[in-house]
């Protein structure tokens, strides 16, 4: 008998707490596969954030630190600077990274901090039950934008990847999606590349992964995947926004 599919070594044998239809589980798996693929598990330190992924330290089977809301890039900086041979990644949602943690993520990128950020964008605050996020789409109804996000009151969604790609310290910035198998495989390649960039000391790497939140979007899982494809991708176009040139190093 041949094993064709198994749990990555970088994932612990712990059931996820995520809601049915949420794509966090897929993104955890992609991150773990990238750690396996690059062969760095025993020198990897992950940083969990605050939000739905607050318990991600239970799932990644490597050394982990749990960071305060939005501060994961600063915590990761502290780790990476004193232990430059470790592979350091953060796993952050859009409330954490794009709202309360904007200063930390912008300056980690500007410093060419040699860390990898997995940025999960589901356009809403999940853990705290569906409030408007900086990434919430115009017109999208949430607990704190009950009639839909409007420009007059709430301004525009933040495109983190495009913004960070303008910084010279960013080595690899990509936005990917998880709405179907083809895109999951593309996302897998992007996450592996981000870890590879760090291993080659090429600078700051971030993969923005579009993700669903069926419960707080008020949709069935399949409907949520469709909504992500139809509404989120137009607002958050997929692609690589910057990639290191051959032989480029920052460190």
């Amino acid at each position: 008998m041949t094993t064709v599919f198994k749990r990555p070594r970088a994932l612990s044998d712990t059931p996820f707490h995520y809601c049915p239809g949420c794509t966090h589980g897929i993104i955890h798996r992609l991150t773990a596969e990238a750690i396996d693929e690059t062969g760095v598990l025993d020198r990897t330190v992950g940083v969990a954030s605050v939000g739905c992924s607050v318990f991600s330290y239970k799932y990644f089977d490597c050394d982990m630190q749990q960071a305060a809301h939005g501060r994961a890039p600063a915590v990761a900086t502290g780790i990476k600077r004193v232990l430059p041979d470790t592979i350091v990644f953060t796993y952050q949602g859009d409330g954490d990274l794009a709202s309360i943690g904007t200063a930390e993520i912008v300056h980690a990128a500007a410093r060419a901090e040699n860390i990898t950020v997995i940025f999960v964008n589901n356009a809403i605050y999940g853990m705290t039950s569906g409030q408007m996020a900086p990434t919430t789409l115009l017109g999208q109804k949430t607990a704190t934008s009950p009639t839909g996000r409007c420009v007059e009151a709430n301004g525009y969604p933040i495109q983190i990847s495009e913004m960070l790609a303008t910084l010279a310290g960013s080595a690899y910035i990509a936005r990917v999606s998880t709405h179907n198998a083809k895109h999951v495989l593309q996302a897998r390649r992007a996450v592996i590349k981000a870890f590879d960039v760090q291993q080659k000391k090429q600078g700051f790497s971030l993969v923005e992964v579009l993700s669903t939140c069926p419960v707080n979007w008020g949709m069935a899982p399949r409907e949520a995947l469709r909504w992500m494809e139809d509404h989120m991708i137009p607002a958050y176009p997929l692609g690589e926004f910057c990639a290191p040139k051959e032989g480029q190093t920052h460190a």
Partner: protein
Amino acid sequence: MGKILMKGNDALAEAAIRAGCRAYFGYPITPQNEIPAYMAAHLPEHGGVFLQAESEVAAINMVYGAAGAGARVMTSSSSPGISLKQEGISYIAGAELPCVIVNIMRAGPGLGGIHPSQGDYFQAVKGGGHGDYRMIVLAPASVQEMADMARQAFVLAEKWNNPVMILGDGILGQMMEPVEFTDQPLPAVEKPWATSGAKGRRPNLVNSLDIVPESLEQRNLALMRKYERIRQEEMDWEEVAADDADIFVVAYGTAARAAKSAVDIARREGIRAGLIRPISLYPFPDHPLAKAAERQIPLLVVEMSSGQMVEDVRLAAQGRTTVYLHHRMGGMVPTPQEIAEELAKGCGKKVQS
């Protein structure tokens, strides 16, 4: 080695490096700027990491990350910046990470001023951030103590896996005095809990989160037991002219320097005054104060704040003696003469000036 004339902030930074501090994260703010400048100039030559963070918030979280990774790490700031660090300090206390935080206090509230103050006493000794936790707090009163306590702070931080704050002020940071350094390196401490990559062992976790109330209460109780042991072992104070004292002045830091001179003035006037100087502000040295209170010796508390430590002095005295306050604020420093006059009042006398 002999004595060197140095600024308090520089002496503290030099002593920290000699104690094996190999990582510093900070953000500019007056009157502590000599500390990051000294670290930027000298840490790299010892193989250490200096990083100017984008904010005090980021700096303290870098300290969290580096401490969790096993480094001997510190940060420094001044009052408004220390307010910004409170969230991170709470997480560090919750995760039980060793680190040193220096507060070179300036006057507040708000942006206040840049002159010396002791207005952050409550914030330092009562917790400061959210949740139930304590820092160990040391109060230097000379440039020599700025250096000695930098070293002692790392010893205590690593002994108790707890944040330690050095609570100085603008005068202690800026003034120059002769200082002597020890060449004795601080031994490395085993940190088997550090997140340094899980090669050949189970993964480590640095964390303050525990959403099960039954289990979080056990963590809280364990922290309380630790703080109680810290109270038993780490109380520190100085007594001056205490043996025959009819009245004590109680002061720490810069205020204690003026108080010490005031004791001399008072003694020349025939007032048998003494000084009790708390050196550890947490744990607060209530033993000598309780002893004085039992003998009904009046206690004059002198502070550069609205009167914060005086509350802890009253708790220690438990109503058994008179506790009264003399204080200056806003960056003003009490003079020995005005303290001596207060001592005289406490004994029903007058000082001839």
